[in-house]
């Protein structure tokens, strides 16, 4: 099968890769680029474990073709912390015990970050509907919602 050459930006770095025409962005990230923080829970866009930012929009990377990344900007979970400095969402997920098995966590963090980028002060209902595309089977979502609320408050500079 012939491959397609792609030039893109991932977490701020220029990246070039070859991929098959039918290869998902998720497979490219995981299998070709070693960015295995994005997870495959379903491969059909139902679970959100592969949530990735594409030009500032949250997408299921299992539903995006690797070839579609040409000339675009991608952010993955690997780019969320700056060196050792965790993003407030990452810190709050840890403090609130908002993860048990953790397989869904990268997707939730990416999706929650996308929410706070556009809405720094979401209501509980807004958080719940925004995150409805991300499945978690362990937590019942309670602590995830609280972690997002707390991170949002901290990012706004509100007293916790």
């Amino acid at each position, binding site marked *: *099968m012939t491959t397609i050459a792609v030039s893109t930006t991932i977490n701020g770095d220029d990246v070039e890769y070859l991929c*098959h025409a039918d290869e998902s962005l998720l497979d490219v990230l*995981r299998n070709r680029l070693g*960015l*295995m*923080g*994005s*997870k*495959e*829970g*379903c*491969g*059909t866009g*139902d*679970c959100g*474990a592969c949530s990735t930012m594409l030009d500032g929009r949250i997408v299921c990377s299992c539903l995006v073709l690797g070839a579609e990344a040409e000339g675009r900007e991608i952010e*993955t*979970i*690997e780019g*969320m*912390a700056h060196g050792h400095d*965790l993003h407030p969402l*990452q810190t709050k*997920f*840890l*403090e*609130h*015990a908002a*993860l*048990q*098995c*953790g*397989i*869904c*966590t*990268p997707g939730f*963090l990416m999706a929650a970050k996308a929410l706070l980028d556009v809405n720094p002060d979401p209501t*509980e*209902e807004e*958080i*719940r*509907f925004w*995150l*409805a*595309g*991300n*499945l*978690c*089977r*362990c*937590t*019942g*979502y*309670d*602590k*995830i*919602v*609280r972690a997002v609320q707390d991170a949002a408050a901290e990012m706004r500079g509100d007293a916790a």
Partner: protein
Amino acid sequence: MSFDASYNEKELNAVGTRPVRPDGVDKVTGRARYGADYNMPGQLVARVLRSPHAHARILRIDTSQAEALKGVKAVVTAADLPDLTDGDASLFAILDNCMARTKALYDGHAVAAVAAIDVHVARKALKLIEVDYEVLPHVVDVDLAMAPDAPVLDETIITKGVTPAPDAPSNVFAHSEFGHGDVAAGFAKADEIVERTFKTEQTHQGYIEPHACVASCNSDGSAEMWVCTQGPFVYRQVCADLLGLEVSKLKVTSSEIGGGFGGKTHVWAEPVALALSRKAGRPVKLVMSRNEVFRASGPTSATSIDVKIGATKDGTITAAEATLRYTSGPYPDTWAETGAMTAFACYDLENVKTVGIEVLVNRPKVAAYRAPSAPMAAFAVESAIDSLAHKIGIDAVDFRIKNAAREGTRSSYGPVYGPIGIGPTLEAAKAHAHMSAPLGKNQGRGMACGFWFNFGGQTCTDLNISADGTVTLSVGTVDVGGSRASLSMIAAEELGIAYEDVKAGVADTASLGYNDMTDGSRGTFSSSMATISAARNAIAVMKQRAALMWDIPVEDIEWKDGQAHAVGASHDNLAPLSVKDIAAKAGNTGGPIAGHSELVADGAGVSFGTHICDVEVDPETGATRVIRYTVIQDAGKAVHPAYVEGQYQGGAAQGIGWALNEEYIYGEDGRLQNAGFLDYRIPVCSDLPMIDTQILEIPNPNHPYGVRGVGETSIVPPLAAVANAVSDAVGVRMTHVPISPPRILAALKAQR
């Protein structure tokens, strides 16, 4: 070394706090490695060919074209997994389930597998495998499978547990019976009786991480496997048995596990990956798709349950009876028996009888799912209890309190209870503000109790003290929900050092002695017991080292607050020695300092919970929203309360999904029609409210800190709590879960 596991009340410092888990940073940065996140040099990609038929005889499999395809390195069928099970029927069922031998028994049953250089070649190869099937009549419904004209899955099965034994084979593998007293006499004394049949549909554990492994068999007979599992030692044993490998030559490393809930206590594709690697002579990676997870890894039983309960007007239950029919998939198992044992376990009953009936159907082999078999039985019983309370006009909580099992009650499954915690959870529910909160239009409230047997099991830990006084703790129970944090806390508590100075990790099978799986709510219960024992052993070593450093008798040394203290008048000018002081000198006082423990953690104690649920039902659409939910459960002692709450909330959410949405839907052709998260809908964030929790702490007498398992019980009450709430809201008794919109609309229509 002898170890006293009995409860000893003392002040705890680390235990009961909420520190960040040791594996946390890896999990929020994407660095944690799960089943599919591991690769080996020269690794091949495996794909599995699965039966499209619910029931079919395999007449011929021709793999020659697939084998001839460039890039294909191995093709396996059942012929490559010879039967080494030596008459062990349950092991044979596992083998046959991994790869169909003579018959495909359900839609999705594996019939062949390939290993190829990449996924494209592997997929192409699957299409080149020719399988001739003789399609047979199938049956998927539990009641239909018991009908006299049902197609029989296994002609060798004659129902066990009935006298006289039937003379013809059927799909009923066994009857089992529990109870005491005389139910007929009990019903004769009743003023009111409720008798109903309930049904529950088959659900899946729904872990977000599909099964995944990398298997590598070497020419020297050694093998390795990286795999997501709840029990690497059990996987090692089962795989070694099925493949004829020497147990100690197979090293199994458990990856981070992306959810299991019982579903990763059984092997599915792992023996197939090993067989492919053995044949290809190269490592093989096998990752299931979500479709395969639903079609071919284990769901729960579907059930049909008759319940009859009678009570006098003053609210005393005089007799209770249930017949519980559970599907087990296409192989014999004991799921109905477990359901029959748990059904009435919450109550003090003079006359009780339960019968469990195991039914074979053309569905995937049933696997454990969090308190396996108990939620369905609790749904039926707690629904009937609720109806009966209404009928005699007594408050549902008071009715349960009046009839609750207590110390000295003969349990419905046989033994007499010691001290148990159902009473306190019911009293807490009665006193909870949730119980008296006002309800709006179309809203209803329900509550229900649940019971589960927790257990312990074989457990082994190593506690090593490094030269700088920090501690590594190796445990053999897979961490499914934060147990590395709780076990680090326990080690810190026992040694008297800071939590940050302990790092717990899960060992592979080559690095630690055998451990049973993380199941039966045993992870923290068992491994904390072994950790306490290991820490005490390490303290004994440190006291000896301190004695050498001080040159005094070891008898004159006391361990307190993480330090060795010299006691006695002649030593009182000696400054205490900390773990760090002692560890720094280890090289000259006898070498590395460690504490080990190998034990059987037993006496886990049974567990009870009470849940309260409010719902709002839209009478136009039949859609239900859970608007408030409260979980009350006894933890014995909550080591890390945030993760205990997490277990309560997670179990409740799974139970709510089971109650309202989740079900396997089969077509007339016996094929699963909703093998994906779009159509098999687990609760999403916008479906649920916050889930309130109340942790009761009634110490477990059989654990040094009083810890009980907390993982499973929380999934037992929700089906009934939700059903009782919906029934309250709509004024019709809902008897079939999931209580989906069509079922609610049908019930409302029937009422009009």
